[in-house]
Structure formats: structure tokens, C-alpha cells
């Protein structure tokens, strides 16, 4: 019954990596001092655009590029509104979420009703799981090989992006300047850092990263469009909470994603685990299933409370977050 455990670990990764994309993308934006609540919508737009073009070309790489660009354009819109026009960041972000999810349904409905229909995949399936890469040696390890080393490229890319972003913040000069803007844009400005340029660039790249996460979710759903719920399914919102959970560190975001993912997967797999290990885990069946459904969110709530109680000095929260930088205000 080791299979159950393997599947459990496998699913923690497969179903929750989109959160890592959403979280790292949002961290990049928040580090520049902007709070973007439009993660859900940005992911939705990246997902639809990337998936549709990718399915037409039957090419995963093109799908990724298109979804990065589409979400990047949403980021550009957000930057234009909040950096250049100084619009309220909360309102703009919420508007983007409403707009993005609506865009998903609008395009989806229009295409499904059209004579051509929602594009069906032919030839090689553009499916995240069937794109699994075989790593010689590692993939063959019993149990662990399947759980950790049999994933598609987008899983490893998500982790790589988080690690690179962590290095970028910690070890590079532009990363340092970015953090300075997030803490005190006026001070950075006085040192000759182009605040607007930095904000634009990082909001666009951060949004693009979110788009990849959205595309991943669409691929994971087999790319079928149905009216019932959006592919993103609230993951954008969870990502925003995970940013605080991770204390604005991309490295801790990996940890946070898998911790949340553990409970997120437990809500589906608890019965299977109890079934496979009746002696060790049989007690899981005594807990009402609705408690497991609530558990990921209860954990998030607890972490948000504890991290809010952390001393200010240790917090990675950018001090200027959510406030537009208006040069004449200095």
C-alpha cells in the first residue's frame, strides 16, 4: 500500500505548484512596494491566452511564452494605473481580478458556443502530467522517484524560479535596489534609482510568472472549459496569503506551498490514507470530512496570526507596501 503514500506526496506537488507561481509572482511585485490583489484575474488571463494559443500550435513552450506575455500585459496595465496614474492599488487589483475571471468565462463561453468550439488537443497532449520528464537514476528510485522526480517541466521551473528569485533579492545589485524601493522609495529615488522603471519591470515580470501558474492549472484540468468553475479556483487568493506566510521570501514560499499543499491534499486523501494504513492512520476516519476541507484555511489563518505577531524587525514586509510613490510628496 505504498502506492497511496506515493500518490499523496505526488499530488502535494502536482496540485499545488500553481500556488508557488502565484506566490513568487506576488512577492516580486510586493517587494517593489506594490500590493497587487489581482492575482486570481492575472492567472486566469494567462491561463486562457496561453492554453488557447498553445493548443492551436500543440506546443507547450509557445503556451508558456504566450501566457507569460498575456499576464505581463495585465501587469503593464496595473503598473500604468498605479505607478503612472497613481490609482488606488487595492481597487485596481480587485478590478483586475473581476475582469480576469470574467474574461475567462467570456472567451470560454464565446468559443464553446462558436461553430469551431473550444479547441481540442490532438497529437501530443498538452498535459502537465503527461509531460513528465524521466530523470535517469532519480526517477527510478522506488517510491521517491515517482513522488518527487517524475514531474513535468513546469513543476521544476516553478521551483527554479523561486530559487533564482531568492538569489536575485539577496545577491544582486538590482535586487538590492528593488528591496530599497519597497522599503523607502523616496530614499532609493534620492540615490538615483529609477523607481518607476523598477516598479514597471518587476510588476510585469511578477505578473508573467503568475500567468505560468494559471496555465499550469488549465493544463492540470485537462484543458476542458466548463461553466461550473474557473480553472484558477481561488488559488490566486491563497497565493496572496502565502506571501505573508512566506514572510516575503521566495525560498520560504516553496516551504509554504508544500505545507499548505500537504493539508490541501490531506482533505482529499485522508480516507485513502486511513484505508491503506488502518492501524497507524485509521483514526483519520473518525474526524468529519468537513474538518479536513476547512483545515488548509484554518492553518493559513493560524500562520497569518502568528506571523503578524512577529516582531517588526524580523518581518520581511516591505515598509512602503500599498502606498503609491508620488515624487512631489517627498
Amino acid at each position: 500500500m505504498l502506492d497511496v503514500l506515493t500518490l499523496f506526496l505526488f499530488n502535494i506537488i502536482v496540485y499545488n505548484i500553481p500556488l508557488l507561481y502565484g506566490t513568487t509572482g506576488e512577492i516580486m511585485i510586493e517587494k517593489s512596494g506594490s500590493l497587487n490583489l489581482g492575482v486570481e484575474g492575472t492567472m486566469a488571463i494567462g491561463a486562457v491566452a496561453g492554453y488557447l494559443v498553445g493548443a492551436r500550435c500543440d506546443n507547450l513552450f509557445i503556451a508558456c511564452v504566450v501566457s507569460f506575455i498575456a499576464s505581463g500585459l495585465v501587469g503593464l496595465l496595473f503598473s500604468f494605473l498605479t505607478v503612472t496614474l497613481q490609482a488606488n492599488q487595492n481597487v485596481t487589483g480587485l478590478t483586475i481580478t473581476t475582469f480576469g475571471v470574467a474574461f475567462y468565462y467570456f472567451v470560454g463561453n464565446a468559443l464553446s458556443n462558436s461553430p469551431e468550439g473550444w479547441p481540442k488537443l490532438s497529437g501530443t497532449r498538452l498535459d502537465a502530467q503527461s509531460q513528465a520528464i524521466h530523470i535517469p537514476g532519480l526517477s527510478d528510485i522506488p517510491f521517491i522517484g515517482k513522488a518527487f522526480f517524475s514531474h513535468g517541466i513546469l513543476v521544476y521551473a516553478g521551483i527554479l524560479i523561486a530559487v533564482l528569485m531568492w538569489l536575485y533579492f539577496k545577491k544582486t545589485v538590482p535586487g538590492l535596489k528593488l528591496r530599497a524601493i519597497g522599503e523607502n522609495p523616496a530614499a532609493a529615488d534620492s540615490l538615483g534609482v529609477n523607481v518607476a522603471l523598477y516598479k514597471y519591470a518587476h510588476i510585469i515580470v511578477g505578473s508573467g510568472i503568475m500567468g505560468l501558474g494559471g496555465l499550469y492549472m488549465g493544463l492540470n484540468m485537462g484543458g476542458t472549459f466548463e461553466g461550473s468553475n474557473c480553472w484558477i479556483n481561488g488559488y490566486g487568493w491563497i497565493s496572496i496569503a502565502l506571501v505573508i506566510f512566506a514572510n516575503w521570501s521566495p525560498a520560504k514560499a516553496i516551504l509554504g506551498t508544500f505545507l499548505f499543499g500537504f493539508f490541501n491534499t490531506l482533505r482529499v486523501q485522508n480516507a485513502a490514507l486511513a484505508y491503506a494504513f488502518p492501524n497507524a492512520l485509521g483514526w483519520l476516519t473518525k474526524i468529519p470530512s468537513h474538518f479536513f476541507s476547512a483545515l488548509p484555511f484554518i492553518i493559513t489563518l493560524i500562520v497569518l496570526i502568528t506571523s503578524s505577531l512577529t516582531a517588526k524587525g524580523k518581518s520581511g514586509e516591505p515598509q512602503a507596501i500599498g502606498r503609491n510613490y508620488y515624487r512631489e510628496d517627498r
Partner: protein
Amino acid sequence: MKKLISMLVTAALAITSVFALAGCNSAKETGNGTEGGNGASDFKVGAIYINSQNDTAGYTYAHHHGITEAMKQVGLDPAKDLFIVDNVPEDDEKVKQAIDQLAGNGCNIIFGISFGYINAMEEKAKEYPDIIFSHATGYLSNDKNFNNYFGRIYQARYLAGIAAGYKSLATGNNNIGYVSAWGTEYAETCSGINGFALGVLAVNPDAKINVYEISTWGDQELERQAAETLIDTYGCGVIAQHCDSAQPQIVANEKGVFGCGYNSDMTKEAPNAHLVAPVWNWDAYYATAMKAAMTDPSTFMTTVGNYYEGLNSGLVDVSELSANCEPQTKEAIELAKKMMISGEWDVFSGVKLSFSGDTGSVTVEKTNSALVTNDGKEIVAAGGPSVDDGVIQGSMNYYVEGVTQVN
């Protein structure tokens, strides 16, 4: 100036998104709005939907499709004579507003498709005695202008169960999975599971039906994971479903097992897996209701009344059998269907069917056998009559023998 531009851009974004999301959250104002008179030419139909009228699958889609089809059958033009208020949540105030709006449009009959519209519709039926109110899935009515309607979908599920049963015999895998939105909490899901299970057991008495309850009416991701668990952990070889999307069938297709969808023929989503799906043909009811209301609205409650029909009226049925079905399936389904249409036999009675024989000579045998729950309680004695409709519709909260809920 910057502020002005930013406000304008934000406002424009908000407005476009509201339009795109809501689709059309208002009644079409194309009809001429004259009230009174029930001649076919100025008969108007009102509809209140829980989701968008532009949906391409799912519950609202099925009803919208049924209403427009029925209107064509009775000679009405949906573009001109149908008024819709969609995306109406189950909130009394919102439903009442929608009804007022449709009444203002001069509708002669108003259909409300969601369970939670029940109280608002009952109240408004008193306020507008000249309009007929018709409520899906509910249980309230009056003797003048307010009825409810639903169908015996469990009969169609029984037929799908037969297809699954034959498949399990052929593959030698007695484990059958069922991804369900809810379990015993709702009689609708519960009677569906039981109907399906009894169909399976009529063909393969050794089969075990494993139910995974996802505790929500629609969540593609959970539906997918539930199907995966049923296949990978519980070794199920056929996956049936009572949930919104086709994800369970898609998973079955990916993993090389079989499945029975719901609501629409899901063979197009799962070409190598899908066997047959229980489906609704709502137009069967809508045409009946519209015809009666057009002829003489004052006798609606005696001619139509509360409507609870099954295979006999065509309201429920199964989709076309796919090529994945075992050869005996078609004959067995025809036999069972005939018995249910004639009223000679029904699913939840003290008589059970069993099918045997090869293609071309499938026979069905009736034996008296008590209907027993999975914890050994007798519901109907051997040879006894069917469980009451009221129980099937409203209070069934047990699984029959052979069903296990895994979570």
C-alpha cells in the same frame, strides 16, 4: 488630470468586467410587453436561472436548452417570447425582484430552476394570481397557479448501472467508483447512488460501489482528485459521477478505465472510457407545462399539477450507448426500461431484477428480495411496493447494500 484618467480607466475596466461576468443580468426587452390574453401569439415565458444563460454545460444550460426547445415545439419564438433573469442567487429578495421584473414584462408563466427560489415563488404566486409559477426540485405548491416539477433520474441511473455492471463482469474488477457531490445529506444524490448501485448489482451481484463525496456541487479539481483516488487507491474499474464537470470521465480515460457521466453524453470528453450517461430532457416537461398554460391557465393545477415523471415521459433517459459498452448492455437496458415505462416494476421496490444470457438472448428475471440498507436495516420487505415518492424526492438518507462511502 492623472486622477481623472485613472478613474476613467478603472471605471471602464470595471464596467466591461461586470458585463462580461454577468453576461446579461437583465431580461431581454424585445417583447412588446402587452399584458393579458393567452393566445399563442402573445404568450410569454419567464425564466429565472441560477447561472448564466450563456453556459455551455451544466444545470442552467440543461434547463435553458429545455425551455428554448419546448418553446419551438409549441410554436413560440425564444428570441421574442422568452424573458430571462439569470445569475439570480438563492436570496428571497433577489428572486422577488426577478419575478416582479418578469411580471412587468407580461410573462404568463414563470419557471424558477433552483431549489432556493421556493419561498419567494410561493409568496409571489399569491401576489400574481394570473401568472403560473413553476418551480424545479421543490416541494411546495398551491391549488391554483404554483406547482413543482422534477424527474425520476434514479431510473436512468439504474440503466447506467447496468452498463457499468456488464463492464465490471467483463473486466473481472468488482470495484466500481462513484464521485458524488453529496452523499446521504441530499435525497437527490442519495437516491441517485442507490439507483445506480441497484442497476450494477442486477448484473453483477458481487460488485462493490465505492462512493467518494466531494461535499460541493462543483469543483473540477476535487472531482478530478476524487476520481484519481477511487482508481488508484480503491482499484475501481468504472467511475460513475454526480457532479458538474466531466473531470471524472477524463481521469478514467487517462487511466484506462471506464465511466458513466451525467447530464450529457460525455463520450466526446472521454472517448475511450465513457459508457453511457443518465441525462435530462427538460423540454419534455416544459412543453407539457407551456401547452397547458396556453390552453387554459385556470386548469393548470389539474392538467399538469405537481410533476414527477421518469422514463415514461422522456424527461429522464440515458444517452446513446458508446462503443465501449459490453454487447449485452443494450438489450438489458431495453428490458429494464420497458418495465419501468409500463409501470410494471420500479427501482426501490421489494422486487429485484437480475439479468443473464448472452447477446441476442438476454433475459431478465424478477425475484422477491427485500431492499436492505448497507447497515442491514430492511426498508422494503421482499415483494413489497416501491418506496414512497416523497422519500425518494425528499428524505432518502441511507445507502443500499453494496454501497460504501469511502470518505
